[in-house]
């Protein structure tokens, strides 16, 4: 049915971007606007003795300077996921007595332009007494470690166990073979290309505040501003997230600057603007990952998995960011079953406080960490048992006839055909051919590696009752309004938010097909709390599955109303009316000429003179869709790499991916998401690392030091799909935004370690930089190991 779904429609949002007319927050300028710059702590941990703002305040062009105590009338930044027993330390918007990470705000300058504001920041004198710092996720719980918050003993904010501990320990103890290892999933800096920004305007007569912010979820920001931080009544607050230049999770959270900027706008009664620099972004945007994990996998001799036991220390940073505790718990432990039948699993996470930037969701969020643990264990198990890693995995796959499949770690997988997925990737990548090539290369002394990974993701969070039951502060449904104008043109309002995903195209495809109207008659509006109904926003690959489904529900209501109206106008029984979704014509069954066009009907609801009894005028429907379950995208990826023996440099020679993201609305966009995700995932495997020294100084705070993936490091990536529709949403879609990132990391690590295996190198921690590999090769060969 329909004309658009499943087609690679060109994106309707692109004309403004390719002509430099993107509506990013940093592009906003309002007459009379002041500029905000923030003085930040250079210490990871210190007591603030005094803040001297006199010289800054005296600088010509400075409008005002504020310190922590000025913000006594705003609430601290809240944490929105609080499982039972969690300790949630206070998070002041501007530090008053103590700073807890490099980048913690200590003072705020307001000036006529940004240059003056930054000059004034340099003139502020802060007297600190430095304190010892702790940066390590696991070390934070050691006796004697510096305490980050007095009210969080042992720096442990929470302990989150799941699964049958005793049965799992028993299964491991009685296994034929156990792989036991410690793994580090290193800290990453999200680095969306657009740095965060915020603009605010106060209407002192109406007492209304408008905040433009680089957010993935403007309604959540409004809720938190209204109820917790700024405490302006929600109906007096408008939050707008116009075009946002990438998020990857980092723009979900409620940040201090989103409170500071509107607070300033009201205090000085002028519009105010703050734009983050990249270096500032590195020390304020929530980071990702940062786990230390101890894992044990039990297997039978033939490779059958018997149990998995995982303990993880997850670095939360200096404060609990908006959703931070959710990531290494309900989005991590629950994913440890992968695509495999594992009889018993026990997983537990300690969330620890350290003197680092808070850590929260970053593309994949918990799920890449889970896949990494499991896939590394399986690769090593295959090595130990002298099995092909694909064969070992195949042996343990959940069979297609066992869906829905209940894992031992709470989730129920909706659909999948994993053996078919494996068949497809082996064929696409010519896996056997690659192995032959590798064998030959090895004989020539070359370090060629073939990597494989098969990953699961729980996307589309989440059934609200489940989310709130686990500790979420809000339900995770989504809203969708279809407003049909008198002439039959359509405005769609969605609570989802696009920051690169192309909703203006995909959602228009959905609605056009559901109603049978041309796509160009449909316009998608998002990102403005005053225009769209309360919605949850975009993260966790939820928009098509939840936001899209809300639109399908609204379209059903529209079709129902038009069917009743057409029946009335055509003097037929509603049961005999057909709504043709190709043309939008509503006609009598078997008599296509006895029809009313979509525009005729929408106009009839405007004249409203011939409506059936009881029907209201107008044509607008709203739905709030709450999903029945997560969706479970799955993937199998293969890569071939070669390592330069002398330099340790990794070259990716081939990369192939087969993903099951359910039904696909726009293949062009979905492939773009998958490839983009893979490259980002490879970034973690090979280069990216947010490095702190032991004093809590971030050594990778600029793009000079933080190695982002570049175009010249990649071959063409081959992608294909293995479609098993999700049975529980009306579109049959699963999430597509994060799978690439999840699989990209594990696949490349698998390939690099496979290349190094003949040298007896069993495991190296990410990122697998040339230097690290070079040193490992040197150590291995000088020990006389390998060839």
């Amino acid at each position, binding site marked *: 049915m329909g004309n658009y779904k499943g087609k690679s429609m060109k994106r309707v949002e692109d004309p403004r971007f*390719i*002509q430099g007319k993107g509506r990013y927050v940093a592009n906003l300028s309002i007459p009379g606007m002041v500029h905000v710059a923030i003085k930040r702590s250079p210490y990871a941990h210190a007591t603030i003795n005094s803040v001297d703002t006199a010289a800054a305040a005296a600088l010509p062009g400075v409008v005002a300077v504020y310190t922590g105590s000025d913000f006594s009338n705003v609430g601290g930044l809240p944490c929105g996921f609080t499982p039972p027993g969690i300790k949630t330390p206070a998070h002041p918007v501007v530090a008053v007595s103590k700073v807890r990470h490099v980048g913690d705000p200590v003072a705020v300058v307001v000036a006529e332009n940004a240059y003056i504001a930054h000059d004034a920041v340099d003139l502020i004198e802060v007297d600190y007494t430095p304190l010892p710092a702790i940066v390590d996720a696991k070390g934070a719980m050691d006796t004697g470690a510096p305490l980050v918050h007095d009210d969080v003993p042992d720096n442990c904010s929470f302990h989150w166990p799941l699964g049958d501990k005793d049965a799992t320990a028993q299964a491991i103890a009685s296994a034929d073979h156990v792989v036991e290892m410690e793994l580090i999933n290193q800290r990453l800096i999200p680095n969306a*290309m657009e740095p965060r920004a915020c603009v605010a305007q106060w209407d002192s007569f109406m007492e209304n505040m408008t905040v433009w912010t680089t957010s993935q979820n403007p309604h959540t920001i409004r809720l938190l501003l209204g109820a917790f931080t700024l405490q302006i009544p929600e109906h007096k607050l408008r939050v707008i997230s116009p075009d946002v*230049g990438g998020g*990857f999770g980092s723009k979900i959270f409620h940040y201090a600057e989103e409170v500071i900027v509107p607070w300033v706008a009201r205090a000085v009664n002028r519009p105010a603007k703050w734009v983050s620099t990249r270096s500032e972004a590195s020390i304020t945007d929530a980071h990702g990952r940062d786990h230390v994990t101890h894992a044990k996998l039990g297997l039978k001799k033939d490779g059958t998995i018997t149990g998995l036991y995982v303990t993880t220390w997850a670095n939360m940073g200096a404060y609990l960011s908006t959703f931070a505790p959710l990531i290494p718990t309900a989005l991590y432990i629950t994913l440890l079953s992968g695509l495999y039948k594992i009889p018993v699993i026990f997983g537990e996470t300690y969330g620890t406080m350290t003197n680092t930037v808070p850590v929260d969701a970053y593309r994949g969020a918990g799920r890449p960490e889970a896949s990494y643990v499991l896939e590394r264990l399986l690769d090593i198990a295959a090595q130990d048992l002298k099995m092909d890693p694909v064969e070992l995995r195949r042996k343990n796959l959940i069979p297609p006839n066992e869906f829905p499949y209940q894992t031992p770690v709470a989730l129920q997988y909706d659909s999948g055909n994993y053996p078919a997925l494996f068949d497809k990737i082996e064929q696409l990548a010519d896996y056997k051919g690659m192995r032959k090539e590798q064998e030959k290369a090895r004989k020539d002394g070359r370090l060629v590696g073939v990597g494989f990974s098969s990953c699961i993701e729980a996307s589309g969070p989440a059934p609200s009752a489940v989310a709130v039951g686990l500790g979420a502060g809000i339900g995770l449904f989504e809203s969708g309004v279809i407003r049909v104008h008198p002439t039959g043109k359509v405005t769609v309002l969605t609570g989802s938010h696009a920051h690169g995903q192309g909703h203006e195209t995909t959602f228009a495809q959905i609605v056009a097909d559901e109603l049978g109207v041309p796509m160009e008659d449909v316009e998608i509006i998002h990102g403005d709390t005053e225009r769209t109904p309360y919605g949850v926003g975009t993260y966790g690959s939820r928009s098509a599955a939840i936001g899209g489904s809300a639109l399908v529900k609204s379209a059903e209501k529209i079709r129902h109303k038009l069917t009743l109206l057409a029946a009335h106008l055509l003097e037929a029984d509603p049961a005999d009316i057909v709504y043709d979704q190709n043309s939008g014509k509503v006609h009598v069954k078997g008599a296509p000429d006895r029809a009313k066009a979509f525009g005729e009907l929408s106009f009839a609801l405007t004249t409203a003179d011939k409506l059936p009894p009881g029907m209201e005028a107008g044509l607008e429907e709203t739905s709030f869709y709450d999903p029945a379950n997560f969706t479970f995208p799955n993937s199998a990826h293969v890569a071939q790499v070669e390592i330069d023996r002398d330099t340790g440099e990794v070259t990716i020679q081939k990369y192939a991916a087969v993903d099951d993201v359910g039904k696909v609305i726009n293949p062009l966009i979905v492939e*773009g*998401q998958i490839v983009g995700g893979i490259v980002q995932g490879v970034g973690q495997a090979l280069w990216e690392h947010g490095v702190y020294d032991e004093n809590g100084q971030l050594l990778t705070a600029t793009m000079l030091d933080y190695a982002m993936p570049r*175009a010249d490091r990649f071959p063409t990536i081959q992608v294909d799909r293995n479609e098993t529709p999700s049975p529980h949403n009306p579109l049959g879609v699963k999430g597509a935004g994060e799978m690439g990132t999840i699989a990209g990391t594990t696949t490349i690590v698998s390939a690099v370690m496979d290349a190094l295996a003949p040298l007896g190198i069993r495991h190296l921690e990410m990122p697998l930089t040339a230097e690290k590999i070079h040193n490992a090769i040197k150590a291995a060969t000088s020990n006389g190991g390998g060839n």
Partner: protein
Amino acid sequence: MKVSMTVNGKATERDVEPRMLLVHFLRDELGLTGANIGCDTTQCGSCTIHLNGTAVKSCTVLAVQADGTSITTIEGLAQNGNLHPMQQAFWDKHGLQCGFCTPGMIMAATKLAAGNPHLTDEEIRHGLEGNLCRCTGYENIVRAVKAGAQAMAGGD
């Protein structure tokens, strides 16, 4: 200090602070916000423009250094309402997602492609090494630049 330059074909004169960066001059003084600022260490290329016919990162040039030059920004690329072939190619090949890197990518790509209608993947990947994109994984950017280069030469 007084600076004057031709920007997108228009003569422009302003009084600016000597320390003002060209990218701020374009964005804040002239309202040409197409060139984005993605970093503070000349790594990302989001701010790329054409200065006297060369692609440069406008965050690395002072406005006063651009005195007397001729500048084209992304806003000046389309002619008489027609997209530049490179802009069209980015659209056709889905060479952008969030769009933030896109103006810089397109400005860099048009220079890379000028006189090179048959760029190889490798040449494109190397040529765009100074432009970062966090969204696309570069693949479709490579496709777009290839198609754009051909179209610029009047090819298919």
